């Protein structure tokens, strides 16, 4: 990969990451936030892969796009179920 191509890829990855992270911050509804967080994790994994850090990319992919959003979604489900029973 020559230098210009690398610079273009890194720039794209940085922009995608910034957009995805802003989306995750702006999403106010927790379930939607979990999905936005997963997208943001995917963007970060792409950024790390482009920056030639495959080990960190794999960690981010596994934790940021799978485990963390899953834990948030499960918590949301538990809270909602309790609230429905209240009504």
């Amino acid at each position, binding site marked *: 990969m020559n230098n210009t191509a*690398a610079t273009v890829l*890194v720039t794209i990855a940085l922009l995608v990451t910034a957009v995805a992270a802003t989306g995750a911050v702006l999403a106010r509804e927790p379930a939607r936030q979990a999905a936005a967080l997963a997208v943001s994790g995917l963007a970060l994994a792409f950024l790390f892969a482009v920056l030639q850090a*495959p*080990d960190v*990319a*794999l*960690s981010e992919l*596994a*934790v940021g796009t*799978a*485990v963390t959003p*899953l*834990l948030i979604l*499960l*918590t949301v*489900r*538990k*809270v909602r*179920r*309790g*609230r429905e*029973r*209240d009504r």
Partner: protein
Amino acid sequence: MTKAWRLGLFGVAAAVLAGWWAAACVGLPGFGGQVHPYGERAVGASLERHTANVIASVNFDQRAFDTLGEESILFASVLGATMLLRVARDERRQRPLAARVMPSTRLFGAVLLPVTLLTGAYVVAHGQLSPGGGFQGGVVLATGLHLAYIAADYRVLERVRPLTVLDVADAAAAAAFTVLGLVGLVAGASYLSNTLPLGTFGELASGGLVPIINAAVGIEVASGVIVLLARFLDQAVEVGGGPGDGGSRTAGKEDGG
């Protein structure tokens, strides 16, 4: 303290921090430069110890003590989640119902479950050779197992997930990391230093202590994440009643509903 005071204090602190931070950034080497003093030393040390994946060498050999701290953090958080999410006295556990699953979903899960577990085991086993390792492979193993929940139902997941065994495996693997560090002391070197036979570069059994600690981390992360997810899943699927569930009237209203 009034709002204006607080803003003023923040403004002064932020200005000072911004000044020092900008001054520090000016001294940094340029992005993507040709000179990497730390990288060159890390690669040299890694090659010397016959570890093909330099990152694994940094994590489990050159900076093994830092990794020990990180693994202890994971272990402590699993322990904390287990304590907090235990079934309280006024909660009750309901048997989850058997669920109907589309045949295509069932087929998808049945085919992909073994493939995912094999991938996870591969990533753990080749940690000292290629990108990945105990942490990454462990998370793949743990999340892959939950395909059983997607392809079947919660009862099947409970059957393929022996929590008592995994609890013990998590603790034993975390302890194994600590104990493996003593190998260095026994050999007359420092704690966690890599004194085992180094093997042939690029072979599965190379890198001395690295693949062994890597495997311990793989077991700890895989069982730890399964246990962690199990506590959350139990709460979401099985456990009902108690203050965390039916009685959270005010808490539920407060966050806007």
